[in-house]
């Protein structure tokens, strides 16, 4: 959980980023709800529909997940099990935290690299109905992976410097 008192400069930057992510998430959720609901309404009241609604709402959904996952990582809300780690002696816990964060950073880097490669491959691809540039989906995934990796780096530094390992998110 986050500590309530704002410390350091990083904390306010983190807060600002989280606010921006929150606005983006809310916009995506609203947009997908309006698109899907609009289609139901059009179907029954006007016997028509928006052909691109299904596809476009899916893209909003994917982006909502990227924003939301990054935000949840910043706030330490991804589901994890700290039962074992909490029972370790402080020294051992530090070792485990270092390993855990390093591992997380490594796979998040793999995810980021994979996203980059796919964005490259798809730089000329478009959604079949909407014409939406598909590389954006992978760019979004890249952004999420980087964001989550930065959080893990922060936690790694905390574990290394021995700063209170109580707070901060799960890796």
């Amino acid at each position, binding site marked *: 959980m986050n500590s309530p008192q704002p410390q350091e400069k990083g904390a306010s930057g983190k807060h600002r980023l989280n606010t921006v992510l929150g606005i983006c998430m809310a916009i995506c959720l609203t947009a997908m709800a309006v698109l899907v609901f609009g289609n139901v309404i059009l179907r029954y009241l006007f016997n028509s529909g928006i052909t691109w609604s299904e596809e476009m709402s899916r893209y909003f959904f994917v982006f909502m997940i990227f924003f939301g996952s990054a*935000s949840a990582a910043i706030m330490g809300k991804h*589901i994890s099990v700290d039962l*074992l780690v909490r029972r370790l002696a402080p020294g051992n816990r530090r070792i485990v935290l270092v390993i855990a964060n390093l591992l997380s950073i490594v796979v*998040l880097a793999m995810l980021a690299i*994979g996203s980059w490669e796919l964005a490259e491959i798809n730089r000329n691809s478009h959604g079949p109905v909407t014409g939406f540039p598909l590389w954006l989906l992978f760019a979004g995934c890249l952004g999420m992976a980087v964001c989550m990796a930065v959080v893990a780096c922060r936690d790694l530094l905390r574990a290394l410097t021995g700063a209170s390992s109580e707070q901060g998110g*799960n890796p």
Partner: protein
Amino acid sequence: MTELLIFVAALLVPIAFGISIAIALIIASVALMLHLDMFSTQVIAENLVSGANNFSLMAIPFFILAGELMNAGGITRRIIDLGLALVGHKRGGMGYVSIIAAILFASLSGSAVADTVALGAVLIPLMIKAGYDRNRATGLIASGGIIAGVIPPSIPLILFGVTSGVSISKLFLAGIVPGMLMGLALILTWWIVSHRDEQTPLPKQNTSEVLRALRSSVWALLLPVIIVGGLRFGIFTPTEAGVVAAFYALLVSVVIYRELTFAQLFEVFKSSARLTSVIMLLVAASSISAWMMTMADIPMMVSDMLSGFADSPLLLLLLINAIVLIIGMTMDLAPVILILTPVLMPVITEAGIDPVYFGIIFIINLGIGLLTPPVGTVLAAATSVGQTTMGGVVRGMSPFLIAQLLLLFLLLLFPQIVLVPLHWMS
């Protein structure tokens, strides 16, 4: 076999190290890739993105949004008030209130955790004030919370439907009766255990007060009718049902109850989106694992291992449920559904077991897993909302947990309990 062991080890060790389950799933997939000598960062990214890019799964954020709107907009509170007015004055009444509220709320919300938190925050303090044991009260709320995953709408049933290809609408309709039975099992158990507790019942409300509570909650009670009716009569798909529920909840909260400000609304959208993302990151990461398990032939391996039981569906089901129960104790629900469904479905179909029936059983079983340590998200949520210890909740919950397990066993022995009412409804 080696592949299966590598996957399980590479999943459980990182989880034990406190790594979030979504990332542990990617680590386990990478371990399989290395073992199969087909390491590729693109497999990770490709499956993660396409695992999330799914129209049917959009029902999840919509139902979560509907649930959060109902909590913030006063619908949840009115349902609890109705329960209080109806049975609050009976001996052990607060317990019945909790169970009835859990069933009603289950028909509005798709998530067991959300249910537990929303009801627990209001009902646990009330129950403690009325003289009930804190752990027993918290345990009851938690075991009532898992009904939300069985009675439609249900996030777990959506996940199962998407992975297995079984009709989500059918699963929703099939969940109604077993979900009610879970409530009934709790009522019976509560009737037995509450005799021993000291409590002071609430004063009895007169008829006009009961009517007022009913009138005030009628808007909430209409929603399950809309959802089930809409699905049954082909007015919308499950995803559209979710968005209809959300708009309905918005309308009732803003126009009829007038309890939502714009700032609150923004908060609700934000928290719904974040909650969805946490679930969906698990879903997306699981789809990497599922892909790699297909590459490693693990579904076929498991099929071969279980094929000896294909002649006896009951034995097969008992075995599968024992395995699922054990896995459910140590894993979160979403990844288990996404990873086990493709592994188990071929065996289930081969043995001639009805896939809709299996889905319901599977989800009830995993719902029970949400209540058990070491990894139980409902247990954890209840512990925090009841402000007690995990051990305490487990103790207080044990009779209810046993009742749910007995019900599961009963449904395994008599599939008709699920299938006959489903046949009537569809």
